[in-house]
């Protein structure tokens, strides 16, 4: 490789890898849109202006984040062919740091799903075992990192959509504190839960990407005006004095014994480095899924009203005036899962049900948030749990909607409370990766990354896969 054009070399390698692993529709189907020539032009610019912290690093982006040139379809037919006339703040920041966009990745339609099966452009597959799902909704980005196409990728989180696919694909996945990263340009699913997250081949890749995209953005009223801490740590350090909470609700009797063993050995490895492990309780955990599905679908029903065929995207004129156009456009533009959630969300907000569902859910959400606050107030620095109840399942395995929703059982709590959380590989079960989730207090990503770095270092590559 030539050393004069590192960015172009890296981009060429990324495209070569896409071909080699069959990243497209006939293979993993993790990459929806890419343009080699355009990316090489970007790489040329990056080569001419070296010095950014991510200079020449190729990256992939979930298809629900607005980018120039490549489509932004959210895995939906209703945005087929739509190219955003502006770019997301996170994309601008990565570009300005020298990183080069090489792919828009597959996802569940409008990020609604936990398997990347609900994409209008077909399901994505797990590079570890293509008969299995990569998780979701950011499954394409997780797969792109796991397949070695890119070292970093952006996803989005509403209830676990970065951490869960990261665990399934054996990579690092981070959901920052709500407000840490700008949502400007992230197509909204549930505004009070959504955050842009990052995937990294390693903890330090994820840390570098997170440092670049984090920080106040005047275009997002919910972005926090907080200094961004340094997230890179020496993984060989000790953790003396660090208290790690082990919440009993995340280790129920029904939990797969091997999953329990993998996560407990991770805790053991951290204890060996000097950390103290403390049993704690987060008592409202089992309510997270009902709360999550009420809040998320309610907000989604409103956020997706803008897809009406008037100003952009897909339109079906129908044959009955304006209302006919609306109904034809939305009925044919949205897939089954999105339709289901829009209707559920409309129902829980409709007259007579608001208090029983939406208001009640927001009250219980307050209780879930308090659980975390109490744990951290009682001396816990970070909380460690399994990221998912099981490793990746086979395509088509979860037919019932609620069965699929239960996939988010360990991850949705962090979105509801707004706290940062990340998944780190901690080995495999029958060759399938599993992850441990590290949760920290609001805006304490620093503590979370420190523990993650040590865990990664203690377990070795791929979490010491067995």
């Amino acid at each position, binding site marked *: 490789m030539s050393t004069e054009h590192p960015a172009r070399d890296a981009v060429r390698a990324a495209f070569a890898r896409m071909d080699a692993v069959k990243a497209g529709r006939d293979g993993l189907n993790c990459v929806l849109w890419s343009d080699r020539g355009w990316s090489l032009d970007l790489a040329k610019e990056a080569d001419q202006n070296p010095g950014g912290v991510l200079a020449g690093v190729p990256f992939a982006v979930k298809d629900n984040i607005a980018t120039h040139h490549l489509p932004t379809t959210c895995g939906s037919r209703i945005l087929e062919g739509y190219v955003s006339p502006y770019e997301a703040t996170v994309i601008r920041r990565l570009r300005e740091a020298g990183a080069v966009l090489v792919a828009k990745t597959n996802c569940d339609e409008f990020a609604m799903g936990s398997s990347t099966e609900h994409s209008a452009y077909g399901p994505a597959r797990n590079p570890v075992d293509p008969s299995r799902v990569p998780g979701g909704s950011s499954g394409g980005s997780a797969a792109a990192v796991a397949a070695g196409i890119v070292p970093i990728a952006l996803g989005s989180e509403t209830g676990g959509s970065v951490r869960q696919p990261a665990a399934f694909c054996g990579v690092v996945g981070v959901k920052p504190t709500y407000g840490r990263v700008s*949502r*400007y340009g992230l197509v909204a699913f549930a505004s009070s839960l959504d955050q842009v997250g990052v995937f990294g081949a390693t903890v330090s890749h994820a840390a570098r990407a997170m440092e670049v995209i984090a920080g106040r953005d005047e275009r997002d*009223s919910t972005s926090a005006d907080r200094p961004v801490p340094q997230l890179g740590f020496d993984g060989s350090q000790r953790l003396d004095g660090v208290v790690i909470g082990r919440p009993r609700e995340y280790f129920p009797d029904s939990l797969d014994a091997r999953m329990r063993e993998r996560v407990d050995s991770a805790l053991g490895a951290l204890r060996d480095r000097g950390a103290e492990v403390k049993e704690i309780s987060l008592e409202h955990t089992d309510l997270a899924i009902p709360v999550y599905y009420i809040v998320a679908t309610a*907000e989604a029903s409103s956020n997706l009203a803008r897809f009406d065929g*008037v100003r*952009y995207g897909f339109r079906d004129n129908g044959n009955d005036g304006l209302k006919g156009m609306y109904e034809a456009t939305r009925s044919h533009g949205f897939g089954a899962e999105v339709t289901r959630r829009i209707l559920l969300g*409309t129902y829980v907000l*409709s*007259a007579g049900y608001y208090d029983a569902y*939406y208001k009640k859910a927001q009250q219980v959400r307050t209780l879930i948030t308090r659980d975390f606050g109490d744990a951290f107030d009682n001396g816990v620095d970070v909380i460690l749990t399994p990221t998912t109840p099981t490793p990746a399942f086979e395509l088509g395995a979860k037919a019932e909607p609620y069965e699929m929703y239960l996939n988010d059982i360990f991850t949705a709590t962090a979105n509801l409370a707004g706290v940062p959380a990340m998944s780190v590989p901690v080995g495999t079960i029958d060759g399938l990766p599993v992850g441990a989730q590290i949760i920290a207090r609001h805006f304490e990503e620093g503590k979370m990354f420190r523990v993650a770095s040590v865990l990664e270092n203690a377990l070795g590559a791929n979490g010491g896969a067995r």
Partner: protein
Amino acid sequence: MSTRVSVADPITERYEMVVGLEVHVQLRTETKAFCKCSTTFGAAPNANTCPVCLALPGSLPVLNEEAVKLAVRAACALQCEIKPISIFARKNYFYPDLPKGYQISQYDKPLATNGRMVIGKNADGTPITIGITRLHMEEDAGKSVHDRFPGASAIDLNRAGVPLIEIVSEPDMRSSAEAGAYLRVLKQLLEYIDVSDVNMEEGSLRVDANVSARERGETRLGTKTEVKNMNSFSGVERALEAEFARQCAILDRGEKVQQQTMLWDGARGEVRPARSKEESHDYRYFPEPDLPPLRLDRDWISDMKACLPELPQARQKRFADEYSLPAGDIEVLTSSPALADYFEGVARQSDDPKAAANWVMGEVLAALKTTDQQIAHFSVRPADLARLIELVRDGFVSNTAGKKIFAAMVETGDPPARIAEREGLVQVRDASELEKWVDEVLAENPDEAKRFRDGEKKLLGVLVGQVMKKSKGRADPRRVNQLLSERAAS
């Protein structure tokens, strides 16, 4: 019912009208409520749109500080309680001029509540006070044009996202005249505090009315209807009368009024039910998750109250105290803050409030009308009108010449002294010149001159007129009078 009016009375005499008004006012900001697009009126269709007000996927709202200031100023002027925390909410419905499929508004936690406004006096002199239920912030929708292309509607989103306040009154008005008075006083108040152009024709002020009828003496409210589509204050009054008559007729037949939306048809002078909306109204309000609560510092709110400009009623009282003007004059002069400012400028600089009031209410208002000018940019500046008043008062120009000079000032904007010189309208008081004209007139009219000298006093006016004519209006009539009287006596 304690009193029962005889059935011989006209139906409407037996019923009382109960009215509450909802007024939407566009705030006078440079940019929209939640994006940086210009609010300028009259741009090409959709020219003033961006990712945010087009509701492009991924865009987000950021609140305009000036819109908050103007809304708070209006709430202060309406003596509302201003909330330290208010919450934006989404009002969800589909309409092509509503890009996001929801309007960002405020619902159960509005910016301000519990205000009031005095709209006039009862016969016994007590004030008529109308309660203000709430004042909240929201964004405007775009425009749907239905008559431009056949079979299609055309959508222009330039107005989408322009900041509005919605002012909801209590059902405290009892006649269409009170409703009209409420709107005129509200418009005047909003002009005084300079938060809006308040122009109903241009749509910067829009009115919906809730109206019900009940038998006189009844204290419970009847079933109300909402009346929309009025585009002038008199249209509101006429629409209320029409809807009230319709409701009275229904009640008089012993039937029930249906809660519904009525549309005013100004051309036909009638109300008719809005076509059944394509949707049942279920707005599914919930807190806007893209905007944290609006927090206002208590000290900041106090400062906003403290720096409120002088309001109409205070100004009216001061005009009475300071300038000793009659109530009727004050009402005219304070009708708009710009006119009141103009008058005060003239009154102070001429030190003659009475003359200033007469000039402003007479010549100035007439000139504004004929030349279609706004008082704020009127070609005659207060200082120049004050100077003209002095010239007349001090006798340098005649009253008649003053009017001529004013007309020239309106046209040219020149100062009065220069016009007087140029047009030769400066009054001649030089004795020798005046005597020369008097002598000439007496010589030219020997018959009248003789009879005048012989004591026929009524000829004085004729002779003065002749002198004025000879001087082309420049002679000082008082001096001419004096001179002629001296000649008669000699």
